[in-house]
């Protein structure tokens, strides 16, 4: 499972390195990946996902470019694999059948996310659209309500 974290972090590191002008992003991602692999239950995965997301958001280019499309499943895979690695001890023999349900759920989430990405690709971008904020707040209220009910 820890190997899967590394494999998922490789495209993240490559995309960030290609979009950056220095080695700093690459070194940060490598460091955070090592932290995540060694301690998947720590804040390492959150820092890795958060850093990669912010670095991509404030980089130049179209919002739905190839790098972003590669990064979406990669960051989600880092989240899922580190979540499972945190509960499965090291040197545990994992049966593939045990990963069938998480894999199916991963695919469903990615399909929905790419639909959202397709929607984001067609809507106009800009800072003067107030409707987006209203939609965001509404969506946030729904999300918080659903999560609060489940907790």
């Amino acid at each position, binding site marked *: 499972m820890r190997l899967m974290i590394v494999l998922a972090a490789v495209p993240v590191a490559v995309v960030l390195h290609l979009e950056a002008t220095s080695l700093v992003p690459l070194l940060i991602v490598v460091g955070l990946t090592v932290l995540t692999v060694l301690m998947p239950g720590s804040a390492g995965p*959150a820092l890795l996902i958060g850093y990669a997301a912010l670095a991509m958001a404030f980089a130049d280019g179209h919002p*739905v470019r190839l790098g972003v499309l590669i990064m979406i499943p990669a960051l989600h895979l880092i989240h899922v694999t580190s*979540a499972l690695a945190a509960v*499965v001890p090291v040197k545990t023999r994992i049966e593939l059948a*045990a990963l069938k349900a998480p894999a199916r759920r991963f695919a469903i989430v990615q399909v929905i996310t790419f639909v959202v990405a397709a929607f984001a690709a067609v809507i106009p971008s800009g800072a003067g659209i107030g409707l987006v904020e209203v939609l965001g707040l509404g969506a946030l209220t729904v999300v918080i309500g659903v999560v609060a009910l489940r907790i």
Partner: protein
Amino acid sequence: MSSADKIREAFSQAHGAHWHPTDAYSRAVWLGVGLVVAGMFLHQPELVLFGVPLVLSVLLTSKPRGKPAVSVRPVPRGAGAGVVHTVAHVDGADAEIAVVKLPGGARAIPAHSPDLPVQIRRDAWGPGVDLRLDHLFAGPDGLHVYGPVVGVEHVRTILPPVEHHPSGPLPPRPAGLVGIHRSPRAGDSTELRDIRAFQPGDRLRRIDWRVTTRTGVVHVRERHAEADAEIVLALDTRADVGAEVAEWSSPRYGATARPGGSLDRAVRRAASMAAGYLRQGDRVALVDLSRPQLNVRSGVGRRHLLRIRTQLVVCVQAAGWSSHVALRRLPHGSVVVLLSPFLDDEIAELAVQTRRHGHVVLAINTLPLELVPDPESAWGEVAAELIAAEHRVRLRRMAEHGVAVTRSC
């Protein structure tokens, strides 16, 4: 509630046998929502797209309910040493993945998989833990977890093994006593016990042709057993030493007795000798030289062999140094089998005194020879040679006083 109590309660809520959210759940909620909201307000669709999968992973899953558990089918009581097989039943409830720590290593399996075969290795005799299946159940995507739960310990006691020896090398029984206390059991003596109908397993040479001819039904002659000799197995449990002198003072872990050590050899030999004597119909008793309360009175039969083997395990569990050894209330004319490494004069003196009281004494040396000196000490070889020389002298002096001595077992 004090701060310490609050911290303790927070820690206890974060693990144990109940469903609780993991760090991944907090990450998915806070980071996911944070990215979506930040993306909305900062007009950065990338942040929204990165946050959506995390939020969806929370929305598509629900907190599991129910109490998952792992149970093990008990191992049959008669199963002895070697490899034993059983199965573990995993009841996953709402869980998705079960992580079970099996003897061969931890395994992550679907929570609703069929029974798991479990292989248990039983290498050494004595008490021990067969199996303890620590386990943990994870909900969808590992966002909730049940456990880790420490499994129930399945303990067992393996009796010392019995090696079957031919009756030839066994020590002679005391002359003049055989036949005084006649055993009710059938055996091979010359005295007639009964004439009965032939049964499968009877020897053809025992057929009584006269009775058979008269009755028309095959009859056999049953004879009494020569089962009157009292065998006393005397075990010296004060020391458990191996061939390596450097290890004598170091503690041992993982086994009741040091494998291949003096106590292990003594117990194995005692169990085998008890089985051999009892098979011949003799009465056998067990004496712990330093703990008389653990003695087993003499008896016969298969159940008595079980009793002796069980008590041998108890003796070894209670083994330890004792200031003196004692061999009291011996039946008159009994054969005393003394199993000891003979590392001090007191045990040699006891053997000689017992011989002087008219008993036949067989001293079996359980000290593994040749001794291996301590390589880290300059005096290692000298010390080992000194111990070996004293040991030889002790055995020779016992032999001079009429004690039958075997140098190794």
